[in-house]
Each structure stands twice: as C-alpha cells, then as structure tokens.
C-alpha cells in the first residue's frame, strides 16, 4: 500500500491489519506517542472540511509528528491556477505524507501519480472518502466485535450518499451479511451499486421506506442526512423527512445491542434525545476516526520508509 485513494484498493487483509493496529493504538496510546517524531503531514484541503482536517491533524499530533497545510483553495496556489500535479510535486519536498481533499473527482489519484510521498484521499467531491469508510469499519468492529453475521440498516439518502455506497462495498466482502435499504423512493440506492455489491454477490437485502418497520431486525443502523435540496418541492421533503428521523420512540423497538452510526454532521435526522442512549455510537465513531487515521499514517509511512 503506497497511497490510499479508494477503499476498494485495500484487500480485506489490509483492512484487518489497519483495524488491528488502530485497536492496539486505542489499547496502548503511550506506545505510539513518538512513532512519527520529526515527520510532517501536509493537509491540502482545496475545499474546507474542518472535521476531517482536524481528525487528520489530531492523528498526526498524537503520533508525535507535526502538521502543515491549507484549508481552502483561495488561500493556496490553486487560486493562482497551479495544477494539482505541481502542487503535490512541490509539497512532496516539504512533507512526509499528504492528506488531500479536493472538490474534483479523481484529484487525489492525480496527486498520487505525481507525489513522491504517500497520498491519502480525504474526500474528492462526492466520489470517494476512504478514511470515512475505515472509520465506519473500525466502529463496527469495536462495537460489534466482528464484521460477519450482521444485519445492517442504511437509512436516509442512499442515492447521493457516497459513504453509504463505500460502506456497502466494504461490508459486502464479509460472510453472512444482510442489508436493509431504508430511504424515500426519490433517494433509493442507485442500481449500479445494488447490482455490483449486493445482487451479484447474492447478499440478502430488503428495500423499504419505513425505518420503524425494520429497526427491530438491525445490528447496525447507519443514518445519513436527508437534504432538503434533494427534493423537488418542500411538501415532499416535509412529508418524507420524518420517516427517516431516529427518535427515542423508534429506539424502543430496536435491539438492546444496536449500534447507531452517522458520518456527521447531522442536521435533524437523529433527535438529540437519542444521544444519551448507550446505543448511540456516532460521537464514539468520530473518535475512532482519529485512531484509524493514526493507523493509516503509520502504515503508509512504514511501507515507504
């Protein structure tokens, strides 16, 4: 593994190794405090994403390394028309590893072709966001203990939610997994995703518009935002959004050990009254995001030492 651009670039074995390392960091953080001493991470954020950038920076700092970078194109050379390839060729001379976020799909792949140091895709438009998927996987592993034999509900915007597509792709590689696809008609999972990762792999799934009707079956519930702008008119939005809001009443129907996840930020799809429920894992999930990024930075620097 030289770079991380797409979650599917990683084999199941490589994902297992990263998760194992992240769990070892969680168990013994003191052992890793100086692992990246004198190493620098460059966060090249051509569009702002404070949450993701802070997670990367916290990860590098906890490994004893330091960080540099920019967080919007206006403040960078990109506003002067410098190409992605030139930017990373220059930054390769300053940093040991790069995390890049960019509004154009494929920009981190271009970067990886021109950088002499490892490049991590920190999100390229609505295309790929592999460290979010690794975060989701670590959360499932920590909360459920395993990836196989799980019933996973994905709820909300399954059409445009790329993190959902990647999570389905990643989970479809494990045994005896089943999916509940819970969304309004307008925001159903695209058929190419369903074909490639569910139907072709003969994975059992149920498509439904009601969270209430299936929540009792689920081991994991992955919530996503249903955005107003995805609907043609306000009425449809108002009519539908409540079906996909998680409330304490719906939680009473769920299993005792359900794990509720959300990539954050949330708007109103999870009522804040659910936050105090021990099954609400989304803030823990954000914390796991830092640990998996620590593991990833370590692996990439190790592999390229």
């Amino acid at each position: 593994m030289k770079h991380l651009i797409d979650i599917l670039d990683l084999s199941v074995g490589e994902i297992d190794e990263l998760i194992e390392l992240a769990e070892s960091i969680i168990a013994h953080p003191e052992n890793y405090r100086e692992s990246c001493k004198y190493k620098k991470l460059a966060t090249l954020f051509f569009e702002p994403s404070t949450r993701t950038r802070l997670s990367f920076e916290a990860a590098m700092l906890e490994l004893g390394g330091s960080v540099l970078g920019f967080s919007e194109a206006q403040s960078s050379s990109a506003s002067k028309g410098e190409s992605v390839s030139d930017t990373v060729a220059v930054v390769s001379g300053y940093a040991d590893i790069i995390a890049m976020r960019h509004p154009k799909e494929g920009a981190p792949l271009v970067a990886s072709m021109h950088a002499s140091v490892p490049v991590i895709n920190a999100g390229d438009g609505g295309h790929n966001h592999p460290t979010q998927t690794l975060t989701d996987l670590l959360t499932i592993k920590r909360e459920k203990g395993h990836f196989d034999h799980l019933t996973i509900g994905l709820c909300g915007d399954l059409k445009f939610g790329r993190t959902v597509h990647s999570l389905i792709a990643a989970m479809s590689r494990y045994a005896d997994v089943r999916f509940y696809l819970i969304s309004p008609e307008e925001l159903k999972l695209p058929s190419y995703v369903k074909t490639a990762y569910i139907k072709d792999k003969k994975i059992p799934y149920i498509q439904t518009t009601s969270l209430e009707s299936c929540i009792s079956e689920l081991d994991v519930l992955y919530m996503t935002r249903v955005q107003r702008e995805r609907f043609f008119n306000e009425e449809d939005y108002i009519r539908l959004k409540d079906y996909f809001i998680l409330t304490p009443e719906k939680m009473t129907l769920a299993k005792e050990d359900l794990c509720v996840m959300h990539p954050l930020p949330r708007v109103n799809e999870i009522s804040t009254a659910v936050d105090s429920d021990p099954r609400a894992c989304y803030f823990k999930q954000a914390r796991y995001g830092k640990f998996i990024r620590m593991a990833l930075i370590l692996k990439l620097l190790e592999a390229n030492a």
Partner: protein
Amino acid sequence: MNIDSIHNGIVIDHIDAGRAMQIYSLLHLERLDCPVAIIKNASSSKMGRKDIIKIDADYNVNLDVLGYISPNSTVNIIKNGVRVEKKHIQLPERLVDIVLCKNPRCITTTEQEIHHIFKLTDPEKRIYRCIYCDTKAPEL
C-alpha cells in the same frame, strides 16, 4: 486511388456497419494527406453488412481505437500490393487519450496535461470507466 487495390498501406476490414465514421474521427484520419477511402455497408458473407476503411500509405493504426469501436474488425497490412500481415483486434484493457470524460466534476476537466484514461471494467458489456471518477465512457 483505386479503392479495390492499394499498393502500400492498410485496409481495416470487418468494421461493424455504421462505425467507420467514428473510427475515422477518433483516428483523426482527416489529418492525413494520403488517399483514404471509406466504404459503408459493403456486403459480407460473415456479417451481412460491414464497413471498410482503406488508407493508401504506411500508417501505424491505433489498434485500441478499433478495439473500442469495433472489436471484430481486422487490419490488413499491404506491401507492394500483397497482404503481408493480418492483425486481429482485441478489446483493449485501457483507452489512453482516445475519448474524454464527460463528467463535469472530473479532475480531467480542469487539470492540464493529464492523460484521459478509461479502464475496461466489464468485458462482456464492453463498459469502460474513467480511472479518475469512475464515470462510464461516452456511449458509442
């Protein structure tokens, strides 16, 4: 140029009927100075109808273009009026700088001097996808 026989050059035969003009344009044959003949809807015992392109000059044809547009076509190299080589075409694994990605959000639309690369992802359905953004290659 006698379209039945060329002396030194190539004959692209067994092109799927109707595809010759696409090949002509993707190979940029308009840039050639030598005689070029396009024969549309020639009768073929094997295919019913086929297209043929004849180029009356020593020309190094990009086989990937043929494989992409019409994988059953054949290339005959003619030297001194005799066929010296017959090449069968295969479905190319990658298309490099043959077609452009149509996705406006793709990095290829803004980054200069980048190779436009598509990868064969479904040989059966002949589907190619952009390596940068996974968008399907434009419909033929």
